[in-house]
């Protein structure tokens, strides 16, 4: 059974808010915002981060490959967390820029439904971006409420 079901892929690739956690050599964690992600296989994901604020996360990943990615649809608070191991970190190639711009426009529209003016999001620097490949080991339910933190059955390895 794939770690990433079709339903999960559909959700993960939506207009979501994304945060990414890494840690340094002293187990001090770091959090940074993600821009969008795409599922590239049954258990592989590619996530893009704005390069400037992600500098420390990138430095952390040079030391320690484990990563956590939380994905939330703001209007419903529907949330999933992916945990896995990073297999590649690189500057995002130019041909990803259109994808990132389009995805962020969708996210901006989603934010407008909860009262965040799109004009504010226009100030976010999307480019240059960092591209991170990861192999997903587990997926967790993280929508607030009972059951938050439970592994998704379909996603157990």
């Amino acid at each position, binding site marked *: 059974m794939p770690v990433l079901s079709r339903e999960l892929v559909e959700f993960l690739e939506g207009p979501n808010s994304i*945060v990414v956690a890494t*840690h340094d050599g002293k187990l*001090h*964690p*770091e959090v940074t915002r993600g821009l969008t992600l795409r599922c590239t296989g049954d258990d592989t994901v590619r996530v893009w981060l704005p390069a400037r604020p992600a500098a420390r996360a990138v430095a952390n990943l040079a030391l320690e490959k484990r990563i956590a990615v939380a994905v939330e649809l703001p209007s419903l608070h*529907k949330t999933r967390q992916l945990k896995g191991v990073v297999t590649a970190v690189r500057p995002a190639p130019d041909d990803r820029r259109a994808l990132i711009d389009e995805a962020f426009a969708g996210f901006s529209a989603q934010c407008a439904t909860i009262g965040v003016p799109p004009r504010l999001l226009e100030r*976010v620097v999307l480019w240059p971006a960092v591209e991170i490949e990861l192999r997903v080991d587990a997926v967790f339910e*993280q929508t607030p*409420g009972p059951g938050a933190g439970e592994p998704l059955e379909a996603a157990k390895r």
Partner: protein
Amino acid sequence: MTLDPSLQSLSRCFQGLIPSAIATCAPDGTPNVTFLSQVYYVDATHVALSCQFFNKTRRNVEKNPFATVEVMDPATLQPYRLSVRYTHSETSGPLFEAMDLRIQAIASVTGMAGIFRLIAADVYEVLAVERVDLLAEAPAATPATPEFSLRQVLGVQIVSQQVNRGRDLDETLELLLSTLDDVCGFSHSMMLVPDESGRLVAIASRGYGEQGRKGIGAEVCIGEGFIGTAAEQRRVLRVSNVEGELRYGRAVRQRMETKGETLRPEIALPGLPGAQSHLAVPLVVQDRLVGVLALESRDPLAFGTWDESTTTARARKKIPPRRRSPNPPLPPRAVPSRSSRTTTASSSTASTSSATSPARSSGSCSAPTTATAAPSSATASCASIPHSASLP
């Protein structure tokens, strides 16, 4: 230790308008990241997170206390990273009660009273604050303002002077609400008093049309909704970003229903349609609830800690400090007619020893009636301010 920028200067980040995030790390090196509905400012070097469900974040910080929290200024979207260290959890005391009150209020509105509750207030020491380089042009830093400045003291003084001109209760309340509007910009306000059936009834209002008269007579059940919860708990309740809070509550509600919980219907919020901020200030005389001053606004950041301080100061001006009692009584009280209001209300605020202690609710409040305006299809309420009658 001095933080730069200071936590006080990030006060907008702590209103819960933009979800925050926290990253933790298990002892084996597995990171964890989750969204937070709100980060609470505790003091110049501490913040608190609400723990409603025992979760991985709590388990991680009990073993490895270091974490990073990202908060975002809702006015500029400027993010800040707080390097924090978990210190302890509180399950009672002022911090816990303040955080719990807000959750109780949201739970009440979304039909989860007594089910969705605060388990603990998790307190973190802030070790460093970093401005995140996310925006094309960094917004100007917000100057830190003292929690109670000279300007605010003068505001309290002006309100006090105006209110003292009142010759009877009607005039005093009208002066109070109009001065709060003129001085503080609180254009939608109500003064409610308890009646003998366990409801709060508005006897004065401002900003709801027809010179405020449309709000008069509005009813709220004690223990229900924002005003009713503040009244029941005898504590000031400030809720910013009402729509966001309710969205969060509904997400929890949906998860509970998925798990088989049977919940009460959601209740309607009375008052100003589209209100995004509420401030409810209970007026208490020696454990006796004599009224609630309720303010609301469509601005999600309308009320800050400033306003809590100011209105609380006003509310307590003629009222001795509250003494705790294990079972504080509620007074039986007839809602005065407009013609008899002065005498009745005056006697209620002057008399502090003659109240008997009836049941908190007559029962009428526990059976919701049809709501006049519903945030969801399954909405019912005993709150009886019709929205059509409350448009300013």
